[in-house]
């Protein structure tokens, strides 16, 4: 490991170990934000990934759409509300967020209910998006 290995790169010497390769990474979020830890720990991977200069996209399907819904209040369940972090993704140059239309419709949600700008795509378009990726991580 090189000496420039830092917390922000999660234990990696970037130049040595990624050798300038840029791949298309898609992080698929399928679960509600609270109740399980998947959403929070997925976000932790995404934030680390931002340091790697890869082509990063996020997808929200099924109950995963609830992760980016406005007005999350978690005080009464004594769990940290991490939803503001999604708004910070833009600052990490992570701007490609996709939400599956069918998942939104099934839950009676529209773009106005979401706290970030997203592209709403059909399940078929989502399948094409996944097909076009090099690495898909599903949480």
């Amino acid at each position: 490991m090189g000496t420039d290995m830092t917390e922000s790169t999660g234990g990696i010497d970037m130049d040595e170990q990624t050798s300038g390769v840029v791949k298309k990474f898609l992080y698929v979020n399928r679960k509600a934000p609270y109740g399980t830890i998947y959403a929070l720990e997925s976000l932790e991977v995404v934030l680390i990934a931002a340091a790697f200069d890869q082509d990063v996209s996020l997808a929200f399907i099924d109950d995963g759409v609830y992760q980016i819904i406005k007005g999350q209040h978690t005080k009464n369940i004594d769990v940290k509300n991490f939803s503001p972090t999604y708004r910070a993704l833009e600052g990490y140059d992570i701007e490609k967020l996709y939400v599956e239309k069918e998942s939104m419709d099934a839950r009676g949600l529209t773009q106005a209910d979401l706290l970030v700008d997203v592209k709403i795509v059909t399940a078929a378009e989502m399948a094409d998006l996944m097909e076009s990726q090099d690495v898909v991580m599903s949480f």
Partner: protein
Amino acid sequence: MKFGILVNEGPYTHQASDTAYQFTKAALEKGHKIHRVFFYHDGVNNSTRLTEPPQDDRNIVQRWQKLAADHKLDLVVCVAAALRRGIKDENLAEGFRISGLGQLVESGIQADRLVTFGD
């Protein structure tokens, strides 16, 4: 082909670690390479040396250890996920190492395929 393996569930409760192990073993037997096995979420619980299953059951932790020793596998446990769940160097099984999430992203970059085992 060079595979990266991501294990997202703990042992025994969930089949993910068993299936990941069987997949990894089969891939090696077929002559494929394993770039790294990364343990995340409850998957970090596959790495504690305090695990003691009943004697008539498989020992999931030791099984990973043996496969790693036989094939020089890199078994990496996410530090943030591990600390949350009480996994530290003092109870880490031999053959595993604790490091950062960058190791997972790097595996996605370096491997031809990253295969996720989880819920």
